[in-house]
């Protein structure tokens, strides 16, 4: 598989952002979420736990992708 080292940092940043989003979904109620985030419902006290799991899975995917790009070059 072709290694694309230039994608390591973007993938890690994306992973961190997605992880932050997951935590936001778990901690905040749907009413407290910023309006630009999917799942925002004004006045709702519901926690979007599953949205958080989805974001965490995507974050994990980004980290795994970055991990595979870090393979040392072979002689």
């Amino acid at each position, binding site marked *: 598989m072709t290694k694309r080292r230039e994608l390591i940092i973007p993938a890690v940043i994306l992973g961190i952002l997605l992880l932050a989003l997951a935590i936001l979904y778990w901690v905040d109620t749907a009413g407290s979420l910023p309006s630009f985030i999917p799942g925002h419902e004004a006045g709702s006290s519901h926690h979007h736990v*599953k949205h958080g799991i989805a974001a965490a899975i995507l974050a994990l*995917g980004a980290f795994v992708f970055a991990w595979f790009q870090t393979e040392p070059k072979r002689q």
Partner: protein
Amino acid sequence: MDPISYFQAAVLGLLQGVSELFPVSSLGHSVVLPRLLGWDIHQNDDYFLTFLVATHLATALVLLGFFWRDWLRIVRGLGRSLRDREIARDDTDARLGWLLVVATIPAGLVGLILEHQLRKIFASPQSAAAFLALNGVMLYGAERLRRNAPVVDRAGPQGDERIAGRLSFRDALGVGTAQAVALIPGFSRSGAAMSGGLLVGLSNEDAARFSFLLATPIIGAAAVLKLPDLLGSQGDHVRGQALVGGALRGRDRVSRRAVPAALLRDQPPHAVRRLLLRRGDRADDRLRRHLKGPRS
């Protein structure tokens, strides 16, 4: 009064056990049957979904038991690739494992994000019946595809090696997207995934095997996610029934043995016909060996 009786749970468990691995949507049938029999079950209520998902746990366990050697190889392969930070070309298990991971993502994400909306819109007997009919159209399309599918070259790479060599990660994403269609009650998961496999160029046998391997993570994850509901207040009055339904579903030997072999031998319509003629029950060793893949 319990929202679902033990008798109803037993009937639904048996129905799901028989229909799960046929490409006929066990979920769709579970939504339609109560209405056909005039049962006072509210399919939009949380307890019904909790009951259904709890019974799916039995399916996931049966599948895990059936394919446990394969999963052991695949998980080892995944570990190897993470350790080496690459998916080696000759590491079939690692590549197959990542193909399964990628193919599980679409249904996993759509299920996590849109489950509530999908249930609100589609979990009625009327829409399930309509989608069951559309599932028939999809299976007909799959049957047409099967006629054009490549024939397995017995002299070439075998089983999983052939799947890992043939499928790209983009193809796996395509198969996974097809599988996500089955989140709508009425569409069959195995039928959709097999059709997706045929569309991306897998042979009949390989599309069926990939579809069966794909079943375990997605069904298992859905069941595990719903377990807290079953153990919490939503599970009040349905825990015992879920246990009965799950036990009957898991005990069903037809779906555990004959159906996968019959589906490998033929595509859905022929497989169903063969099973109805009680011929699928005599799954020969060669097919079963292929279904279960190479032993390491």
